[in-house]
């Protein structure tokens, strides 16, 4: 039943026959994403991973912030929350703590998660909060028209960096690992099978899991930097991605025309916030 999306015939797909109609809010289609943006591919991978995981769909809640990626929560036919800019993680923190049966997924963009929400990201990683964070990195603020952000490579142009960006970017896997995340991977939107497998691996795990998806933004980032279409960017990912599991995250910086280190950087076990608290406070209170 679940053919890989790359093999699907997407011509003449009606709302009734879309192969993922059960997990999409078809009454919200068409979506807002541009042609050849990578967000749809990432979402397809997520839906495939969710199906394969066997996790009951009613137990999954998705929380997004603001931006192009922030619209994911509104398109998934799950309990879903579209919150304020940068605040998906603290909202999701309350949700997962109040209802531990939920598998809570934060699905948002790089500006949302590591700029305005950066403080929440590092503290949630420190706590090993039981959240799976999917951070789509397109190197720009796409929805507002292509401003520089916390991931914009040095020298890349943006509407707020007309002479090129000379403001050092974050390396998201390095940041996540330094702050205490227990599962960290990065793929581009070209790596559909590997991305889906990472999502499938991370979904049933506990703790703070981060998957970064490098994603083409043809309309804002690519156009401003004369990088071609979304397809050209996928070709770039094809030629310049290096898959290196267990790579030193310090070597995973992304430069303007450099290599993109992909793979699983980290996969360890550490008690989550809730487990750590319950065990230790429980002992002091005498337990049940």
């Amino acid at each position, binding site marked *: 039943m679940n053919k890989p999306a790359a093999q699907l015939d997407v011509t003449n797909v009606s709302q009734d026959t879309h192969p993922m109609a059960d997990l999409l809010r078809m009454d919200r289609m068409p979506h807002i994403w541009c042609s050849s943006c990578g967000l749809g591919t990432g979402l397809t991978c997520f839906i495939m991973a969710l199906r394969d995981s066997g996790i009951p769909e009613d137990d999954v809640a998705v929380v997004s912030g603001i931006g192009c990626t922030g619209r994911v929560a509104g398109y998934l036919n*799950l309990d879903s929350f579209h*919150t304020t800019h940068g605040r998906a993680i*603290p909202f999701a923190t309350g949700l997962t703590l109040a209802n531990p049966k939920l598998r809570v997924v934060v699905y948002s963009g790089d500006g949302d998660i590591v700029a305005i929400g950066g403080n929440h990201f590092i503290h949630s990683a420190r706590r090993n909060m039981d959240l799976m964070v999917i951070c789509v990195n397109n190197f720009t603020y796409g929805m507002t028209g292509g401003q520089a952000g916390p991931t914009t490579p040095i020298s890349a142009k943006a509407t707020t960096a007309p002479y090129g960006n000379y403001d050092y970017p974050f390396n998201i896997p390095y940041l996540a690992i330094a702050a205490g995340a227990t599962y960290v991977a990065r793929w581009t939107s070209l790596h559909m099978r590997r991305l889906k497998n990472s999502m499938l691996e991370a979904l049933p795990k506990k703790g703070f899991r981060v998957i970064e998806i490098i994603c083409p933004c043809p309309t804002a980032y690519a156009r401003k930097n004369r990088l071609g279409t979304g397809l050209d960017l996928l070709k770039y990912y094809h030629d310049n991605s290096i898959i290196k599991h267990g790579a030193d995250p310090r070597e995973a910086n992304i430069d303007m025309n450099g290599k993109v280190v992909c793979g699983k950087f980290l996969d360890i076990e550490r008690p989550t916030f809730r487990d750590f608290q319950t065990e230790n406070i429980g002992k002091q209170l005498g337990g049940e």
Partner: protein
Amino acid sequence: MGEERRLLTGEHFLTGDHACAEGGMAAGCMFFGGYPITPSTEIAERMSVRLPQVGGIFIQMEDELASMNSILGASWGGWKSMTCTSGPGFSLMMENLGLGIVLETPTVLVNIQRGGPSTGLPTLVGQADMMQAKWGSHGDYEIIALAPNSPQEIFDHTVKAFNLAEIYRTPVLVMGDESVGHMTEKVVIPSKEELEVVPRRYTKKKPGEYLPYDYDENELSDMVKAGDGYRFHITGLTHDERGYPVINAEKQDWMVRHLRDKILKNKKKIIEVERINLDDAEVVVISYGISSRVAHRAMDLAREDGIKVGMLRLITVWPFPDYMIKELAPRIKAFVTVELNMGQISLEVERHTAGKAGCYSLPHAGGEVHKPEDIAEAIKEAAK
């Protein structure tokens, strides 16, 4: 650990902050996300002791932005939740107070007011956040805000705030102040039988039939929680009955009117005041929180001098009891508004008096309470 430790029925000697925490416990709070800030910190400290005793969770978040969001998330996860703050922390919570209002999320935010602006007077009293309570988040909305004037009342009002939050599906503010938060007095915690606690009103509809913003004749709607199979979506964007974003003027009008109407059309059910000596009053003092206790003393002093003065003590400050001001104005000489700010609620009083009585205010920037003698002088002036 268990529910038997939730309600500390009996007589206690408590600070206002601790009484507030016990109010949250009594109301069924299971989640507290907060950030320490004077003079509200003792509420968080007490909740960190108390919540684990009943299987709830206390979490110290990284800032007040996160605190406010965490209590919204917890509420949609199915737990009653609260936070507390003061001064600059209240400003940081404004962003997602707005989200709570638009998502229509029951939760409670306690502000133990100190002197401002900015860092201001961390350890000293103020009441200058009253207009921020009403208008602090961007956009048009209505809010419910209570103003306790004693440790007993902050216990009672916190329970009441939780109840109103559930009935009206909205964040409710408890606007305390440093004096009430830090004073220690007798607090009676009632038995379970004596205590009114409003449980969450979950929908009886089945998945597929439920709409998050489907209002009844009283402008109210039912809740669900995540994980129950409803597959609901909610957003901070302007939305329709389904919770789906709709970006146009028509739905904006529909949504904003609902957010206002659910409070304003029910305001006579929400508003609580204390009426003191109003029958023969020619001068009416309007006051709330700690100021109302000083004003009460001033009223007694003026009565000793033969002035016919009464007091309308605001227990609910928002929604504002405009109809009470309109009813009193034509039959009295003047209102005297006593509050620890440069004139916030006094402007509301003046607006609704509409020239039908005199309006006096006693501006005070905070840091200490008014002197009763100064208020008594103002009452005498107003009676002339």
